[in-house]
C-alpha cells in the first residue's frame, strides 16, 4: 500500500513538473506573460468543457442509437428553439472570452515612458542589440558548435539556445524594444517574456518588457528567414539594476579598448587568430568552415580569384554588403579590428595564402564618418 502511495506521489510530482515546464506554455517572468498564461488556461478549460459536452453527446448517440442494438430512426429534423439556444450560448461564451482577452491586449499595448530603449535588429542569422543613448551595441550569435549540430560531439544542455553575447536587461524596469531587420522578416521571441514581434526590413515595430525575476531566458527566431532560421536563438540575461549599470560601464570600456587597437600595426598571426574566431561565428554558416560556400547563393571564398586579386573589392564587399543578396553589410556589426582580422583571415586561410595583412587602420577610414 505504501508503495502505491509512493509511486502515486512521485508520478504526480513528476507529471506536475513536466506539465509545468515542458508540456504547456510557460508562465513566464513578466506580468504580461502571467496574464497571457492564465488567459490561455481559461480558454483551454472552456474548450475542454465544451468538448466534454459535445463529444459526450456525440459518443452517447453513437453507442445508444446503433442499429445493431435495434435502434429505429426517428424523423425529426428541425427545432427552432434548440437552434437558437446553440447559437446564443456560444455567442455568450465568446463574449466572456473576449472581455479578459481585450483587457490583456490593452496592457500589452501600454506606451508609458520606458526606462531603457533597446533596438533589436534581425540579420540573417543573428541578432544585433543596441542600447539607445548608451553607445553600446553588439551582435548575438549562436554559440552551439557546428560539431554538435552534425552529431560529432555530444549536445550540450542548451543546444541551439545559447549565444555568445546575451542581451542583458535590468529587472524591474520597463524596457522598450524596437525591432527592425536588415534583410528579411525575422521575429524576436522569448516565451518566458511573452514577447514575440516581427522585425520587418525598413520598418520599425515596438514592444516592451518588464522582467520580474533575474535569470536567463531563452527563445528563438519565430519567422522563417532562410536556411539558418533554426540557428538564431535569443538569450536574455536579466540582472539587478546595479549589476546592469556596471555591466554597461564595462561594455563601454571594452568598446573604448577596441577602438584603441585600431591605430596600431597588427601582426599577420595576430589578425589570423582573431579572424578565425570572427569567421567561425559570423561567416562560416554561409561560406562554410572550409571556405567552399554553397553556390550559387553563397560563393566560395577559397580560391576565389576576383576576391584575391582585388583587396579593395574584398574589403568593400565585407563592409558594405551586396544589395539584394544574402550578403549583409558588416559596417556596423563588426568593429574595424574584427573586420580587418576576418578579411585577413579570408585572404590567407584554406590555401589562399596571399600573405597580406589588412590593417584595422585601413578599415577604420572606410567605416567611420567623423
Amino acid at each position: 500500500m505504501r508503495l502505491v502511495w509512493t509511486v502515486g506521489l512521485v508520478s504526480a510530482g513528476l507529471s506536475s513538473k513536466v506539465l509545468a515546464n515542458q508540456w504547456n506554455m510557460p508562465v513566464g517572468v513578466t506580468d504580461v506573460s502571467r496574464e497571457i498564461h492564465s488567459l490561455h488556461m481559461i480558454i483551454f478549460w472552456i474548450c475542454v468543457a465544451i468538448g466534454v459536452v459535445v463529444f459526450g453527446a456525440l459518443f452517447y448517440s453513437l453507442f445508444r442509437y446503433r442499429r445493431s442494438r435495434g435502434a429505429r430512426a426517428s424523423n425529426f429534423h428541425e427545432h427552432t428553439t434548440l437552434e437558437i439556444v446553440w447559437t446564443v450560448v456560444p455567442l455568450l461564451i465568446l463574449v466572456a472570452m473576449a472581455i479578459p482577452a481585450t483587457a490583456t491586449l490593452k496592457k500589452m499595448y501600454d506606451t508609458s515612458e520606458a526606462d531603457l530603449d533597446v533596438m533589436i535588429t534581425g540579420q540573417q542569422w543573428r541578432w544585433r542589440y543596441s542600447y539607445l543613448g548608451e553607445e553600446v551595441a553588439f551582435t548575438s550569435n549562436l554559440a552551439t558548435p557546428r560539431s554538435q549540430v552534425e552529431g560529432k560531439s555530444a549536445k550540450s544542455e542548451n543546444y541551439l539556445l545559447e549565444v555568445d553575447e546575451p542581451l542583458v536587461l535590468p529587472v524591474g524596469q520597463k524596457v522598450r524594444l524596437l525591432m527592425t531587420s536588415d534583410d528579411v522578416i525575422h521575429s524576436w521571441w522569448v516565451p518566458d517574456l511573452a514577447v514575440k514581434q516581427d522585425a520587418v526590413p525598413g520598418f520599425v515595430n515596438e514592444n516592451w518588457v518588464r522582467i520580474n525575476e533575474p535569470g536567463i531566458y531563452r527563445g528563438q527566431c519565430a519567422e522563417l528567414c532562410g536556411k539558418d532560421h533554426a540557428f538564431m536563438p535569443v538569450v536574455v540575461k536579466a540582472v539587478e539594476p546595479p549589476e546592469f549599470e556596471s555591466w554597461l560601464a564595462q561594455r563601454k570600456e571594452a568598446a573604448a579598448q577596441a577602438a584603441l587597437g585600431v591605430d596600431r600595426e597588427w601582426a599577420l598571426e595576430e589578425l589570423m587568430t582573431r579572424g578565425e574566431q570572427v569567421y567561425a561565428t559570423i561567416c562560416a554558416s554561409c561560406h562554410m568552415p572550409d571556405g567552399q560556400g554553397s553556390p550559387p547563393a553563397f560563393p566560395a571564398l577559397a580560391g576565389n580569384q576576383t576576391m584575391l586579386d582585388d583587396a579593395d573589392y574584398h574589403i568593400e564587399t565585407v563592409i558594405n554588403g551586396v544589395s539584394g543578396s544574402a550578403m549583409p553589410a558588416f559596417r556596423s556589426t563588426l568593429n574595424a579590428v574584427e573586420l580587418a582580422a576576418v578579411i585577413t583571415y579570408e585572404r590567407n586561410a584554406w590555401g589562399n595564402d596571399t600573405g597580406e595583412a589588412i590593417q584595422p587602420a585601413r578599415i577604420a577610414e572606410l567605416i567611420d564618418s567623423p
Partner: protein
Amino acid sequence: MDRQFLEGRRRGVRRTVARTLVALVLMGCFAIALVPLYDVFCEVTGLNGKTASRAQALSAQSADQTRLVTMQFITRSSSGLPWALTTETRQLRLHPGQSAEVSFTFHNLGNRPYVARAVPSVSPSEASVHLRKLACFCFENQRLAAGERFEAPLVFQLTRDLPEDVKTVTLVYTLYEQQVSLSRHSAMQRPGGET
C-alpha cells in the same frame, strides 16, 4: 428531348458565365486597387508607421506646455551602400505642437557616386499621423559623389492631438540605394527603366 428546354439551359449557362466573368474582372480590379487603397489607408491611419511622402504645412497651433514628448532619431544604412547617415541629435524632448529642426549628415564613403534615399518609419505607429514633416530629405533621392558629404535638415512638428499615452516617438531612417527606378509608380509606366 425538348429543344426549347435545352435552348433555355444553354442561354442560362451563357448568362451565368457572363456574370461570373464580370465578377472575376471586378475582383481582379479590386485586387489591383488594394495596393493604392492600402497606401491611402496607411497614410490616413498611420498603419505600419508610415509617414506622409510630401511636405506638409505647419499646423498653426500653440505648443501644449503641459507635456513633453521624447523624440528619438535612429539612422541605418542598408547593405550594398557605402554611405553613412548620422545626426548629432539622437534625442530631443519637445512639446506637442512645437516645431523643431534636426540636421542630418549624409556621407558617401565609397569611391563612386551613388543615389540613395532615406526611408522613414515611425514607432509607435499611432504617432505617425501626428508627425508632420515640413521639410525632409526623405522626400527625394540624394545623389552624392565619391567621398561627398551633405547636410540636410528635417523640420517637423508633433501635433497637439498626439495621444496622451504616447511618451516616446522613434523615427528611424534607413538608407537604401536607388539604382534603377524603384518607385513602383514610375516603374509601372516604364518597366525596368533607369531613372
